[in-house]
């Protein structure tokens, strides 16, 4: 594989299309302005020249772009006027992201994104081969695997190790449907609320109440709510379809020392997460999915560049029955404690949780009730909602230490359970306010690396003895 190779010519077209997309505004501007005056010939020429330039640079830069595999490096040379070379040693490659785009697909081509170890926040963290044949992509992939293997194995052993591949998880159609219909999150809730009020509209005889004077307005209200409702419904349907297209055929595999995700209907995507790069595992339970006993599992990974945030928090199990999570992942993510005994919060923490929610909601509700009588009183319901939500937060919060792992559980809007290996925790902070101190409570926060920034978990109002325990568990110098 050492001869310099060009990308498939379709790459030139893809690049041109991308450039045209950027030029579309100026071109439209030119044509609109141009068609008004007498000098429209001039403008058409300008547009024509622009198009030809795009065409030429597209072809030329395609012609100049070569790649080859040489001396254990992926060597890319490109550049129209300035010749640029980028040599990427295979050991430095973090992951290959293989995508089958709509344009690549008919030709049996794929787009390969090579991601190197982050650090730099520029696009230098990655290189893209826009369109190459599938076989070549898999050759590069195999080569990468063999390089990584040979590094691990004894260098004298020459034969290739048979690659072990096992499927961990496949998203069933039923689950895909559920995933898509509950992923709108807030949108779903809003349309449900609108639908609810819309029904009120029918029960309460608005038109009789406002018979004469308000007749017109009442009609207006109904019309507006119908439009708003339909708008939300449409947005929701679109988001459902979008999610379905995105997550169709979702498969999670373990190949050798990597987790590989493939998904997508129109655009097939493949993502690789080296097991070594896993920083933490996050189980998220959305309120809408909880009634179905289902949650999602994410992996916080050290990979991913600043431009590709998707690479840092990867959805590995989009939707799964809660009790199946341990069974599914345990064989592949050894040691991670999926079933640990959680310590919950002491009862005296409950008032603090309730207080924190209510302290924001009560003033708002009071103000609304005062200024918008009589309907403003409905806002007092928010107080009830906030109390329920805070109680849920209290109930869900908890922690566990299981050998080398710290597990924190807390709820924001979704319930999160974060499993962190001690080695991967970047820093641990215990905090205690004056009032917490009085109640002998404290807050614990652990940060892990996720892409280029931090992620992790924070649980408020634990028993302060527990916080000390966690703190000492994390401390490496036995000074206490």
């Amino acid at each position, binding site marked *: 594989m050492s001869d310099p190779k060009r990308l498939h010519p379709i790459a030139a077209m893809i690049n041109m299309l991308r450039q045209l997309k950027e030029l579309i505004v100026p071109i439209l501007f030119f044509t609109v302005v141009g068609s008004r005056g007498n000098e429209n010939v001039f403008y058409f020429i300008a547009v024509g020249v622009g198009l030809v330039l795009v065409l030429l640079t597209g072809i030329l830069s395609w012609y100049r772009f070569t790649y080859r595999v040489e001396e254990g490096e992926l060597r890319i040379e490109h550049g129209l006027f300035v010749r640029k070379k980028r040599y990427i040693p295979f050991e430095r490659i973090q992951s290959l992201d293989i995508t089958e785009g709509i344009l690549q697909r008919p030709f049996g081509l794929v787009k390969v994104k090579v991601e190197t170890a982050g650090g730099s926040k520029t696009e230098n963290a990655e290189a893209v081969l826009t369109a190459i044949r599938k076989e070549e992509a898999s050759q590069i992939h195999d080569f990468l695997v063999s390089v990584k293997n040979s590094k691990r194995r004894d260098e004298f052993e020459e034969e290739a190790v048979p690659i072990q591949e096992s499927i961990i998880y496949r998203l069933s159609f039923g689950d895909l449907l559920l995933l898509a219909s509950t992923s709108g999150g807030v949108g779903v809730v809003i349309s449900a609320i609108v639908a609810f009020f819309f029904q009120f509209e029918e029960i309460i005889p608005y038109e009789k109440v406002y018979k004469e004077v308000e007749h017109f307005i009442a009609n207006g209200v109904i019309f507006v709510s119908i439009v708003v409702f339909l708008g939300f419904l449409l947005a929701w349907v679109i988001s459902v379809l979008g999610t379905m297209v995105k997550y169709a055929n979702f498969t999670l595999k373990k190949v050798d020392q990597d987790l590989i995700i493939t998904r997508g209907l129109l655009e097939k995507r493949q993502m690789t997460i080296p097991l070594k790069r896993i920083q933490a595992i996050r189980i998220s339970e959305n309120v809408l999915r909880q009634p179905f006993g289902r949650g999602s599992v994410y992996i916080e990974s050290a990979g991913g560049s600043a431009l590709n945030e998707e690479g840092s928090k990867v959805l590995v199990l989009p939707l799964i029955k809660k009790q199946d999570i341990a069974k599914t992942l345990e064989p592949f993510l050894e040691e991670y404690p999926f079933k640990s005994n959680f310590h919950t919060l002491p009862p005296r923490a409950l008032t603090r949780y309730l207080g924190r929610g209510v302290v924001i909601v009560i003033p708002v509700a009071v103000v609304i009730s005062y200024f918008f009588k009589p309907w403003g009183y409905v806002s007092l319901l928010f107080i009830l909602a906030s109390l329920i939500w805070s109680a849920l937060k209290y109930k869900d919060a908890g922690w566990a230490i299981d050998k080398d792992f710290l597990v924190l559980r807390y709820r924001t809007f979704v319930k999160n359970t974060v499993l962190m290996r001690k080695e991967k925790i970047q*820093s641990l902070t*215990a*905090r205690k306010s*004056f009032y917490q101190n009085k109640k002998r409570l404290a807050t614990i926060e652990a940060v892990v690396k996720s892409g280029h920034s931090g*992620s992790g978990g924070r649980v408020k109002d634990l028993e302060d003895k527990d916080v000390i325990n966690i*703190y000492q568990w994390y401390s490496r110098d036995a000074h206490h």
Partner: protein
Amino acid sequence: MVPEPQTRISKRALVVWRITGVITSLFSWIVGGALVTLGVLFDWPVWMIIALIILILIFSYLFTFFFPKLRWKRWRYEVREQEIEIQRGVFIMKRTLIPMVRVQHVDTQQGPLLRKYQLSTVMISTAATVHEIPALEMDEAEELRRSISRLARVADEDV
């Protein structure tokens, strides 16, 4: 809780923070002065003007005397063989552990005010977080920077 970290930051930090506090209170004096003038011009009730002046005085006292003092008293750190521990906070006590193996690099930093008092701030970065130890004596900061990077280098683990 567990025994506190032992090292304190420089006593001169207190001076720097007081100066910062004075600058902050100056703003409150400007805003407060404007309000008092308005009050006199437009005949606000006398108690309102008095309350305003008391408020400004309390504000200045807190920011130039009370908070810096408390902050300094709470600020402690300790650099050990395998980890760094930091304790700080005025209203909320925070204690953080940073293992040496997680330290990526250490910087020192110095603004004009700190330079005048021969102090500098040490910033410890991990892959995901940055921690600050403010206002150390310059040589102490330099020494700290050196020893942390030495200890951090010894412990070489993958991210």
